[in-house]
């Protein structure tokens, strides 16, 4: 109980929304700015934003989930599918910048509010005069220095052949891939093929660079298997699970290092979610992509979360008494269906029928599984 309460507290602390910022009457634009950086499905900051053909933008995973349910844009209801996706690195960049700026803005707002309230609360002239000017000078100084850095930077950047900056990875303005600063020109001259940095970290070590060379970077030796798949940019295809044997799906899961626990429905759900998460990850710009290990972990938390909470029965005897009639009913049904299965009229190759009665909402993948 206590831990769940703690979780709730933690969640409240970690959730951000546009209402953290002052409204338009106080600070025009700020709250709207925050809102426009958020996906309208999950209300979080865009994660791997993609644009549909109608122009509306969502997190890749959100819209993939939504389209799986219904093939239209949730905002304007124009029909859409994932072949129309365009990753939107511009929005991704803007969101990153805003996420970095947000705490500073909140802090600044708080500081000014504090200053104002202090100034109002303590009208003693001498006191406020002794403390205020010092602060003011500090701030103007820092503002000055920031401005001068910004002005000077473009010129010094060319000169700065000393130090680390040359060895630093920068994003190519054409292909958006990471390239060492000293190689950027030859990279662009080569039509964006040479000198691409393959690692995820922005500060490469010698070792990882050598590793990149030894493993052959873009050579498709490992193909889809093991670590080789981490480098490939090809999205995973959607599959018609209905026509596939359980064994084939199991093999696919093994190929991606995923659990093969559960019945066919569970396997299919797991693989389908994996394909969505994997492809959504590819919609991020390369430096933001998560390693497959992390994706696997997320898949696991998704699976744990989507399972309906188990009802814990404490008093088993009372439970049995209470539901006796339903139990006997179910037993009767099970007997009947097992004898029906033994009967010769049933085709031999038919997959095991599930004994669900109605529950149309529990079987979202019915169209894939229905060819019988």
């Amino acid at each position, binding site marked *: 109980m206590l831990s769940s309460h703690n*979780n709730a507290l933690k*969640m*409240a602390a*970690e*959730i951000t*929304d546009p*209402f953290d910022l002052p409204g338009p009457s106080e600070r025009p634009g700020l709250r709207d700015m925050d*809102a*426009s950086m958020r996906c*309208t*499905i*999950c*209300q*979080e900051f865009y994660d791997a934003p993609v644009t549909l053909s109608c122009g509306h933008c969502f997190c890749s995973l*959100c819209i993939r*989930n*939504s389209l799986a*349910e*219904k093939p239209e844009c*949730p*905002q*304007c*209801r124009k029909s859409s599918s994932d072949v129309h996706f365009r990753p939107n690195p511009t929005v991704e960049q803007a969101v990153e910048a805003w996420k970095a700026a947000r705490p500073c803005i909140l802090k600044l707002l708080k500081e000014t509010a504090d200053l104002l309230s202090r100034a109002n609360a303590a009208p003693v002239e001498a006191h406020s005069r002794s403390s205020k000017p010092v602060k003011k000078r500090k701030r103007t100084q820092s503002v000055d220095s920031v401005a001068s850095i910004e002005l000077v930077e473009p010129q010094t950047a060319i000169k700065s052949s000393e130090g680390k900056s040359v060895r630093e990875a920068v994003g190519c303005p054409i292909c958006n891939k990471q390239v060492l600063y000293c190689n950027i020109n030859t990279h662009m001259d080569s039509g964006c093929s040479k000198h691409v940095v393959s690692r995820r970290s922005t500060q490469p070590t010698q070792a990882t660079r050598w590793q990149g060379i030894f493993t052959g970077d873009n050579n498709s030796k490992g193909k889809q298997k093991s670590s080789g798949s981490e480098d490939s940019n090809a999205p995973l295809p959607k599959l018609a699970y209905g026509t596939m044997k359980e064994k084939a799906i199991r093999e696919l899961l093994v190929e991606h290092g995923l659990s093969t626990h559960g019945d066919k429905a569970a396997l299919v759900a797991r693989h389908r979610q994996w394909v969505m998460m994997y492809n959504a990850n590819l919609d991020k710009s390369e430096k933001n992509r998560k390693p497959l290990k992390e994706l696997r972990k997320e898949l696991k*938390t998704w699976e744990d*979360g*989507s399972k*309906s909470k188990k009802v814990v029965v404490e008093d088993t005897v009372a439970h049995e008494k209470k539901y006796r009639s339903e139990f006997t009913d179910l037993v009767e049904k099970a007997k009947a269906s097992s004898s029906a299965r033994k009967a010769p009229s049933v085709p031999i190759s038919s997959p095991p029928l599930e004994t669900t009665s*109605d*529950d*149309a*909402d529990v079987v979202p993948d019915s169209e894939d599984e229905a060819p019988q």
Partner: protein
Amino acid sequence: MASISSRRLAKELNEIHAQGCPVGIELKQADDFVTWRFSIEVMGESLYKGEKHLLQFRFDPSYPISSPAVQFVVEDGREAPIHPHVYSNGHICASILGNEWSPVLSVVAVCVTLQSMLASCKKKERPVDNDRYVKNAPDNPKKTRFHYDGPYLFLRYLPATATRD
């Protein structure tokens, strides 16, 4: 890690606390991310003047991809409003709660839509198949396949964010 649905609901709740609900709609209960209750009242001139009804939302872990289960509360002397698309057990036949649901809709958007559904009603009557439906209705209205026919497709409602630009 908090699930997507509870994070999203936490944000919606935060917005309600920060901005308040639209006129005539009041948050009555939101102790968890499973069941919320709102009171709903039609403002101005309408057939439902002076009536106040309790609306219940139930969320599953796939919210907002899947719609919430919405119905009027009919217990403790409360009754569902008499309307050609509201059954006497509280179930509502509205397209945005079924096949017209969109994950960009929110709890408040649903409340506003149902409020306007009541406000625009011309004649107070139950659905024609009320008795038949109520007799066999499932507990969860989402398990019912309603037919959204005729003029009620206008219930399609897009939130203000759609016209933000």
